[in-house]
């Protein structure tokens, strides 16, 4: 028995593997569910009802998917260039901090100016957060996996410091939270009495732009070349460090937008528990999507369904809501194995004699 690479993974495989992985992860989740003493069919029924049971439930799922689209895009673009940005969580908070710093009364201008300003500054803050590890990597060779991870902790502590200091809401009754963003600075709602907001539209548009850039532009070609074989790309005259730095800025900016969208689209003000790990979940979203920007949209919807569905299931069945995290983690492991199956095949034959 030996493992051989397939000549070209079929289209069916590239599409089928993520879907199948997600299904297998959901099926595997039945084991802990059963061990926790829940009736499986009822539990999954509650889960589906929790997402598709009402317009409100569905809009909650879309609200949950919005930040995951941004962080998923951030991971997908960086990973395409084999730049391992694990720091989307921190970059998200930098974006959110910039949004409240400018949006909560620093300037009082009409929304038509204020909203773009918040978006641009939030993205810039996230980008700046990723520029540091990118610089440490290209200049000093410091591994970006570790630096971006450690920066997450530094930034979160910095957020707590700011929420007790410069950004603290004087009207907040002593709570460590920022002042609210001005009404005209909030991203418009999409439907009355629903929490979903136009951050979703922004995410969809950016996913489309990223897809087009990656597939059609020179920039996208360079990025893919760097990711597939940095040495060959360098040989072909592509400025590898420049490409890496560029994608780092974009990736950080997208993660920053996740923070902007949460704070200016949903919460209105910043607290230290703004994100329940959207940055880390974004990595799973990107992997499930096969690092394709359009795929990110679909897998963000799936992961958001798991979270929202598992929440309502856990309320109905009395099962721990950590089940959602478990399904997400298992989806990632399944899609990894699935990706292997799509790229290789196991044969019994002896290796063909090599041409001399």
């Amino acid at each position: 028995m030996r493992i051989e690479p397939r000549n070209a993974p079929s289209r069916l495989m590239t599409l089928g593997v993520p879907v199948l992985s997600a299904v297998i992860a959901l099926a595997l989740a039945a084991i802990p569910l059963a061990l926790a003493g829940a009736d499986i069919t009822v539990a999954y029924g509650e889960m589906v009802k929790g997402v598709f049971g009402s317009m409100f439930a569905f809009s909650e799922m879309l609200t949950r998917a919005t930040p995951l689209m941004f962080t998923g895009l951030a991971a997908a673009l960086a990973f395409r260039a084999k730049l391992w940005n694990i720091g989307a969580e921190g970059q998200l908070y930098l974006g959110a901090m910039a949004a409240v710093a400018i949006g909560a009364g620093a300037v009082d201008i009409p929304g038509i100016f204020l909203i773009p300003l918040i978006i641009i500054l939030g993205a810039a803050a996230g980008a700046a957060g990723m520029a540091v590890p990118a610089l440490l990597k290209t200049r000093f060779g410091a591994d970006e996996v570790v630096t971006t991870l450690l920066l997450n902790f530094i930034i979160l502590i910095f957020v707590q410091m700011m929420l007790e200091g410069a950004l603290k809401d004087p009207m907040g009754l002593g709570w460590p939270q920022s002042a609210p963003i001005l009404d005209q600075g909030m991203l418009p709602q999409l439907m009355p009495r629903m929490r979903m907001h136009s951050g979703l539209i922004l995410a969809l548009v950016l996913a489309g732009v990223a897809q087009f850039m990656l597939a059609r532009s020179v920039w996208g070609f360079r990025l893919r070349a760097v990711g597939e074989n940095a040495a060959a790309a360098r040989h072909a005259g592509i400025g590898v460090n420049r490409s890496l730095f560029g994608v780092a800025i974009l990736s950080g900016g997208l993660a920053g937008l996740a923070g902007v969208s949460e704070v200016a689209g949903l919460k209105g003000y910043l607290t230290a528990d703004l994100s329940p790990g959207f940055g880390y979940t974004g990595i799973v979203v990107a992997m499930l999507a096969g690092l394709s920007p359009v795929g990110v949209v679909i897998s963000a919807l799936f992961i958001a369904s798991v979270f929202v569905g598992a929440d309502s299931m856990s309320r109905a069945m009395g099962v721990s809501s950590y089940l959602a995290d478990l399904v997400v983690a298992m989806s990632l492991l399944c899609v990894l194995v699935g990706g292997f199956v799509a790229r290789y095949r196991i044969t019994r034959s002896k290796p063909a004699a090599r041409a001399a």
Partner: protein
Amino acid sequence: MDILQILLSESFWAASLRIATPLIFGVLGALLCEKSGVLNLGIEGIFAAGAMCGWMAVWLGAGLWGGVLVAALAGAFFGLIHGILTVPLGLSQHVSGLGVTLFATSLSYFTYRTALPTVTSPPRIEPFRALDIPILSDIPFLGPVVFQQTAMTMLALAMVLLVWYVLNRTALGVALQAVGDNPDSVDAQGLSVYGLRIGAVMAGSALMALGGAFLTMSAFDAFFFGMVNGRGWICIALVIFASWRPGKALLGALLFGAFDALQVRLQTEVGAMVPGQVFLMAPYVLSIIALVLAARRAEYPRALLTPWFKGQR
């Protein structure tokens, strides 16, 4: 209290070693994995699994050393998952490691919540008590600092010696280092690259889990959500700082422990002038600085992150 006085006190160094203990286990575990050529970012989750499994085993009546064993086995199990995904399948070590972290963390939390659905304050266990080794603990300074710790700290120090000995003085250690440097040469000698690598990842992950078990079974006497709090990631940075050497790994962990102990003692003094968060941030900033300094002269295991397939060159 001035800094010199703190640095000369026994209690300060005893606290440093205590804080360093989980890091010692973690760095040794990460070092063992990386020496064989496999980066293991599962560490943060394996810490959580070790903390939860060790605690739960003791809570269910397995005894303290039973808890240590259960934690090590849990670590080895997650190491096996990471090993299979990254060694014979050759999948991205970064992504697989993160997957293991998410999986181990969520499985531990889910199990804990399922076992204790309604408890608001976590149930406590009787943890390891500080030893008072006769004669040795009477040595001035060294006695109270080193020999009045719990058995798990003793175990961590013994593991430094053991890992150093195995890596540098045994045939297994030579093979393990070779598989991380030049797997082809190991294969040519008829040894199993897959076996050595998966074995190293499992053993290393078992060590990591002991670092987590220390948290619940020696430092605190209960399990909390989020109690690992980045200790695993600091270990990953410390391996680079230590240039993959067990002795320097101990030194790095101790430096961090000392820094952490110092900040707790200085916080009340300086706290009025500097926000407390600056001290909380410092270990992470220090890790990054250590990383940048070490990256220049890092002697990576040459096959780190590179998958190897039998019959392919």
